[in-house]
């Protein structure tokens, strides 16, 4: 089945079996391997991307459902260097193995879009769709707090 979408700002087309998941389209057809597949229960969030500006789990969408949509993956995040959220994750040691990190970053960007100054509890709740096995989440929350400050114009 043919589909068209805008991927990281560029119009793209594909012709894939209907049973192709969006995560597979992004990784295998378009080579955007920053989006990861970490579970088979829609729980881990490693596959989180933005579809029409909203964080969604790309492993639980069909590629054909994204026809006509605007999709942003982790590769499309920083326009000129690292996005402030990426920068904050790096500075705050908000990752160890990095497997959950693209999904965490994409979810965090959407969280901050909806709530630019979240409390630690609101960050934890806002990232409840993303699991990390390495960090214990403390530095992830710090990273999102720092990104929030940077994006609000306060120096960290």
């Amino acid at each position, binding site marked *: 089945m043919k589909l068209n979408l805008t991927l990281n700002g560029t119009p793209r087309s594909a012709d894939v079996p209907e*049973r192709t998941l969006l995560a597979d389209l992004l990784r295998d057809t378009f080579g955007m391997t920053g989006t990861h597949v970490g579970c088979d229960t829609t729980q881990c969030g490693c596959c989180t991307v933005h579809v029409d500006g909203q964080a969604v789990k790309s492993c*639980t969408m069909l590629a054909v*459902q994204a026809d006509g949509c605007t999709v942003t993956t982790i590769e499309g995040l920083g326009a000129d260097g690292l996005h402030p959220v990426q920068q904050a994750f790096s500075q705050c040691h908000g990752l160890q193995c990095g497997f959950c990190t693209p999904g965490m970053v994409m979810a965090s960007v959407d969280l901050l879009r909806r709530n630019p100054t979240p409390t630690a509890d609101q960050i934890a709740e806002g990232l409840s*769709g*993303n699991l990390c096995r390495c960090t214990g989440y403390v530095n992830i929350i710090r990273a999102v707090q720092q990104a929030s400050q940077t994006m609000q114009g306060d120096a960290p």
Partner: protein
Amino acid sequence: MEDLLVYAFKYQRAESVSAAAAALGADDAAKVLSGGMTLLPSMKHRLIAPNALIDLARLPELIGVREQADHWWVGAATRHQDVAAHAGLQQAIPGLAQLAGLIGDPQVRARGTLGGSLANNDPSADYPSAALALQAQIITDRRTIDADDFFLGMFATALQADEIITGVRFRTPQRCAYAKFKHPASGYAMAGVFVAQYAAAGAANGGWRVAVTGVANGVFRWHDAEQALAQGTTTPALQRDDVIDDVHAPAAYRTHLALQMLAQACQAF
């Protein structure tokens, strides 16, 4: 490793509700696709293998939140996050907006829909408790079904095989609230209690409606709690012989959680 669903199917985007119903009627192995937050995981786990998916998530007539005289209409394809964020609904039926904001996680709420939740009737889903407590009317492509008659047990509803929910009317209460004990990984309700109060008008339960999900074979009205609320007495322990007893919690714990969530919901009043 390729990340495709195992079994092939035909995908089509419905042009209208009637076209979708016709397609369903013509093929008893076809399924409607709305948010896909239960359907697609079930297909990934090979629990179901429809040979066709009819996507109606973009039909504008199924999307929206609208205030009417004594109720609110919510379209069947309305996403959970849009119900949760609706300012008017937060004022008029706060428990409903609150419930929608507690479903799953943010990514799931961006896609999951009301109609999908009700049609599936997972015993641990949240929306059935709101529908039952808020005297909902489930509007389909061919009739209107009262919530009291809609939920028939685990994953069973009064819907016919090719019947499609188009929207739900929730009767505006005097006050309401929802409290839920979330499973930490799945986000499903281990106990979810929706409490609503309507004008008493001689009703034995003083206009109170309490609906419980996550605890038993399906959503149910907790009449003892309704009477206790009406009389200002303490609700006794829940007595049912179909309380879920599984790897996540024994029956006694769920029974206990039900009382806790009832108390938590009532703290809003």
